[in-house]
């Protein structure tokens, strides 16, 4: 039991500890922050962080919107072709990332070669991330929708609210935590993605994982440890915030 937890967390702990080590080697030479300050001097890391944030935010916004709409359509209505849409949703969940990346590379590559349509790589990356993330958002939001009390909406409409008002005043506030956790999931997956991005990337659109990957392969200095530590702390903060937000329900049925 403890062994399993150590197996999961000890490598990361060691990684963090040695990001403060005043030596290039793994013998402890004293505390330092120089690997952190060195990060700021590396323009490629700063740039890639910026690219990662742009891609992450853009793809999260789009996939959260489209995914939520999909969830609303699926959970609230019975119609022909429902099963088809559902299977379409589950394909991305089971498809290996490398296949997603390769197939889009083929598509954009052929568009360029056959039709002369050039897709800027940052656009291609966002498109790919959205395609990959929609399903996850939909699944999360839909779970929330199905656990929701529809009587509230009906009550609102009985009391004179029209459908649109009821939607914005009742449904959306209740749905919000679901949308938020779906969006958080999408952002983490986008921010973290190496495989798909590396296939679609071009000059000037290296994301943070790509830079870390290259550094990890060469692994010369503990700067990799430092940037990894920053990511770990960032992730922890993000989870904490989302946990906070999903607890503050603006509207509860009690």
């Amino acid at each position, binding site marked *: 039991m403890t062994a399993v937890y150590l197996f999961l967390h000890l490598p990361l702990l060691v990684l963090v500890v040695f990001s403060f080590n005043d030596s290039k080697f793994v013998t402890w030479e004293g505390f330092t922050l120089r690997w952190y300050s060195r990060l700021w001097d590396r323009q490629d890391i700063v740039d890639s962080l910026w690219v990662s944030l742009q891609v992450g935010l853009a793809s999260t916004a789009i996939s959260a919107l489209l995914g939520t709409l999909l969830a609303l359509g699926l959970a609230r209505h019975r119609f022909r072709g429902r099963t088809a849409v559902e299977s379409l949703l589950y394909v991305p969940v089971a*498809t290996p990332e490398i*296949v997603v990346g390769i197939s889009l590379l083929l598509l954009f590559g052929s568009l360029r070669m056959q039709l002369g349509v050039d897709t800027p790589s940052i656009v291609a990356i966002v498109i790919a991330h959205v395609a990959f993330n929609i399903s996850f958002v939909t699944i999360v939001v839909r779970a929330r929708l199905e656990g929701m009390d529809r009587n509230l909406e009906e009550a609102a409409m009985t009391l004179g609210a029209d459908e649109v008002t009821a939607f914005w005043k009742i449904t959306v506030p209740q749905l919000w935590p679901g949308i938020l956790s779906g969006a958080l999931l999408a952002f983490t997956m986008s921010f973290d993605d190496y495989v798909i991005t590396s296939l679609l990337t071009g000059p000037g659109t290296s994301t943070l994982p790509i830079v870390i990957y290259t550094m990890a392969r060469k692994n010369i200095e503990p700067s990799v440890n430092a940037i990894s530590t920053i990511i770990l702390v960032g992730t922890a903060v993000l989870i904490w915030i989302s946990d906070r937000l999903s607890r503050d329900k603006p509207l509860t049925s009690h």
Partner: protein
Amino acid sequence: MNLRLAWLRWSGRRPAVRAWALMSPGAAWLLLFFLLPLLFMFGSSLMPARLYGGVDLGFTVEHYKQFFEPVYLWILWRTVLYSLACTALCLLMGFPVAYVITRAGSWKNLLVFLVVLPFWTSFIVRTFAIMFLMRDTGVINTVLLATGLIDEPLALMPSGLAVMVGLVSGFLPFMVLPIYSSLEKLDPSLLEAAEVLGARPVARFTKIILPLSMPGIVAGSLLVFIPALGSYVTADLLGGGKSDMMGNLVQRQFTTAGNWPFGSASSFVMMAMVLCAVFVYLQQRDRAQAMGA
């Protein structure tokens, strides 16, 4: 305003129209940028390769035939073997953990949180953490050298062992969480009843705990097996080209090897394996549900 009312009135009588209006942007995105590229890829797997990347028009099945060459079959075999071994190890390590968590009382939340945490943590960072431990100049070798247990660094990495360590630590949370949630639903009074009626611990485990946690075991196995099959980063960073899996084969066809159709064909072999796994899962899930009932 009138337009809005008119739309509401019109679509209110036609639920399908409204559903499609909500779903069409997302569904269109998935069709265009997910399904279409996959079909495209399937098409190109049946076309002749152009030198240095790209495809020529025409029809051929040579790329699927090529896959049956020993070099590639070996990679396929290794991929299946690693994924199965990874799933088995995750199950062996994950089940006890999940079981202990359900009886951990006030520690439960913390223990679950610690399992969830790696799931949110960058996969690259986690893989790098293992490199940092296992490489020649890594922590393990440095410690062993310093204590004088070894004279020269152990060749821990790159190796198949390192890839297995990476896969297991990468996907273990996917095994623990579903098993935990099905164990959590298990009614403790069942175990008490069994005990009172004289069932030994082994019997309680095989007759009650195991069957009732079967849905979690089956789901967890799928959640580990599928990403393991499709993994790329782990074997690339920790296997160093010596323990290539399918993902690495596919990637190479589109980069250095420049044989796009063969890469596409390999991707489809990979997809076929994933579909097989899902199929087996669906069958086992029904069986597990029948067992649990």
